[in-house]
């Protein structure tokens, strides 16, 4: 119940609730109590080996379905396996446009982008992938994006002239569409696109370029790919399968995965939204397990997990609760971030406010590139 609290107070209360719950559940300590130097190693050699994986949820999840006591049953993996190894930021605010493509683009540029959420256009500002490649002189194969839907296929590089060499975006649904030669039989459950406006479902396209990715990069035959796809139940499972394949075959140093299943909430079916959260929870743990089992990544990887934003509060009269993220209320703007792995303090909770656009400058600080046009600030805990 957040009646009579202003935006900042609600945001702070959400943050406190996450903090208290995690402290109880994981025995974590408050980051403000720690004064020692950064655990990150900044030597050049160390940075060359460093791997970063970012998982975003393109479809926010609210506290009552996740980190609040009544939501914990939906996130057993995040809570019991990943949180105890992580630094947890309880108060991440998104002050930009609350649409999934534009918000993910903002996460990737460190600037609140204002592009049309429903258009496949590149971000206006350089992406983290472009900074990474330009400053560190990394090849195209060293950074990849695995993205959920049509709208995200331009997120790999910006329209900014002085940059423009970014990540290859792999759209698993396009791969599948190409592999099935346009026949969608048996795969419709993996080809869902664009929950954000359920009234509108764009036509998916797959072509020879996608088949080439399958064969040349992922080293997968069409038959093997389709055989495996038949065992999967959702688009995010397909994305994680592709991401793990990329990790094995290409071992990119900067891998960005955007999940989307929980955004089925826009259809208004609460049970499907909860199923999406549970699946995402399991898939995050699967990625972390893959990190541990791949020699290129083990002991060398920092994983960041964060929703792009939240969803409307039940009690906001302007919305319809979990279904959308249209009100711009504190619940829809306030979310969290988990960081774990190489160089991250375990069982630490930070509840000072940060913004979602602070991610890119922080990645720059960790990996040694300079996101000059990003408007966020490096999170000081990573410096």
């Amino acid at each position, binding site marked *: 119940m957040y009646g009579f609290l202003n*935006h900042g107070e609600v945001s702070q209360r959400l943050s406190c609730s996450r903090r208290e719950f995690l402290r109880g559940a994981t025995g974590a300590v408050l980051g403000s109590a720690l004064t020692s130097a950064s655990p990150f190693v900044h030597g050049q050699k160390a940075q060359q080996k460093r791997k970063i994986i970012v998982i975003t949820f393109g479809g926010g999840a609210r506290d009552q379905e996740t980190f609040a006591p*009544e939501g914990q049953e939906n996130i057993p993996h995040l809570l019991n396996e990943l949180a105890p190894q992580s630094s947890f930021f309880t108060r991440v605010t998104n*002050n*930009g*446009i*609350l*649409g999934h493509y534009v918000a993910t683009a903002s996460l990737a540029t460190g600037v*609140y982008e*204002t592009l049309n959420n*429903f*258009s496949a256009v590149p971000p206006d500002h350089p992406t983290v992938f472009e900074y990474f490649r330009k400053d560190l002189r990394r090849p195209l194969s060293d950074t990849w994006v695995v993205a959920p839907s049509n709208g995200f296929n331009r997120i790999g590089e910006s329209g900014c002239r002085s940059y423009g060499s970014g990540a290859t975006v792999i759209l698993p649904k396009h791969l599948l569409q190409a592999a099935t030669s346009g026949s*969608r039989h048996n795969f*419709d*459950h993996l*080809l*869902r*696109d*664009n*929950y954000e*406006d*359920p*009234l*509108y*479902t*764009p*036509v998916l396209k797959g072509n020879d370029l996608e088949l080439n990715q399958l064969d040349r990069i992922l080293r997968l035959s069409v038959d093997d790919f389709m055989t495996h796809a038949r065992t999967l139940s959702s688009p995010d499972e397909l994305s994680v399968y592709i991401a793990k394949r990329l990790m094995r075959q290409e071992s990119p140093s900067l891998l960005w995965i955007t999940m989307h299943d929980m955004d*089925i909430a*826009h*259809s*208004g*079916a*609460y*049970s*499907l939204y*909860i*199923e999406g959260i549970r699946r995402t929870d399991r898939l995050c743990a699967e990625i972390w397990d893959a990190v541990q089992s791949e020699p290129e990544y083990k002991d060398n990887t920092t994983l960041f997990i964060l929703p792009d934003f939240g969803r409307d509060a*039940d*009690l906001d*009269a*302007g919305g*319809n*609760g*979990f*279904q*959308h993220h249209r*009100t*711009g*209320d504190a619940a829809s703007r306030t979310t969290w971030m988990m960081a774990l792995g190489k160089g991250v303090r375990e069982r630490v909770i930070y509840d000072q406010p940060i913004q979602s656009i602070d991610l890119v400058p922080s990645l720059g600080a960790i990996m040694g590139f300079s996101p000059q046009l990003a408007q966020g600030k490096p999170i000081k805990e990573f410096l």
Partner: protein
Amino acid sequence: MKPINLKSADFAKYAPEARRLIIAHLEAIRQLPLSFLPNLLREAIDYDFKFPAERNEIEKELEAISALSSGEREDWFRAFAQIALTPDLEGADWVNQPARFAEQESSYLWTTHQQDAFREAATAYGARIRAASPPAEPPVKRLGIAIIGKGVNSYDAPLFRNLRAHGTYFGKVKSGGGLQLLISAVGERAKAHPVPYGHWYVDGGDAAEHNAQITCVSYKNLERARTALLKKMQGEIQRPGMGPEQLRTDLAAMNPSDLGMEKSGDPVLDRFQLKVLTEGSGTQIFSTTFAQWSTRDALRRAQPLTLLVRFAPRQRMRSMNELLSDSQAIPELDFTGSLIDADMGAYYHWINQQRLPGASQSVFIAWFEDHEQAVAVSPTLPRDVEWVSEISMKGLLELALN
């Protein structure tokens, strides 16, 4: 056009009663900032097809605005006046297409980071309007009833978790004939308090027999309209250059006759049902969403004294394209998922009921159909406790209402 330049003739395309209302307040309307005015017109333009409660609210709002002195008006609308708009928005036909303008304005406000300022201004304005013309208390305790879980044989996880904190949980309800009893109770209230659109029955499936004085909306009854709408949407999506914003604009411009809905003889209810199908996300494909959204909109718009909603099983999740193409003649149903959807829907029903006048005296009952579990929220019942004795549905209803 700027609001100050408005003339009576500019409203020539409005339906007669809406035009009359607007012209009666034209002098005050001309003084309002453009960032605000089309949002008011968006409501007023449909005045002829509004429920009595909505008409009353629009009239009161316009009267309150007209009664302001120039200093008060400046004070009330200062925050709206500070919101910067583009020449494109100023040049739009916001008089005749206020909903379209509001959508474009919203998009612009998000883009320019003015959404929060607008939201704050709108919240403050809403509080002032409520203070200037406080809503009347209902003539009888408002009653909400949510019946969930149709067709579910057993369910072991706890139900009504959100509602229990606000009311009394019953685990031993003798439920035989419960559905008929509850629908009859709605009928009796409709007879005792014959208010137009004052007593509603929303069914996510096929409506059970009910008193003719009850306003009834059902998913099954709208099957033909839903099929026609899905077909139209499929056609639109295939059109080159079509995007979600254009699709929404096109749907908003539809009339009940476009979906063969004009034969009921009740144009107000036809419009209501059309809006549920064209403005609600998922109402076209999931019966649970249809029931929840219809309930929300009925409460928000008609402010009924009684609203009973019965959720029915929805079709199982398939790809959105498949759902929209409506390719399965007899869709497979998801009983358990529908129960979980409906449990949340019942909670939202209560929340929306509590937003209406008389909330402190309102009564709400949610019942797992044909099972023994129910919860009742009432000023006469304690919160967050369990009633451990057996009780009949009639007894539960009396206990909650008296």
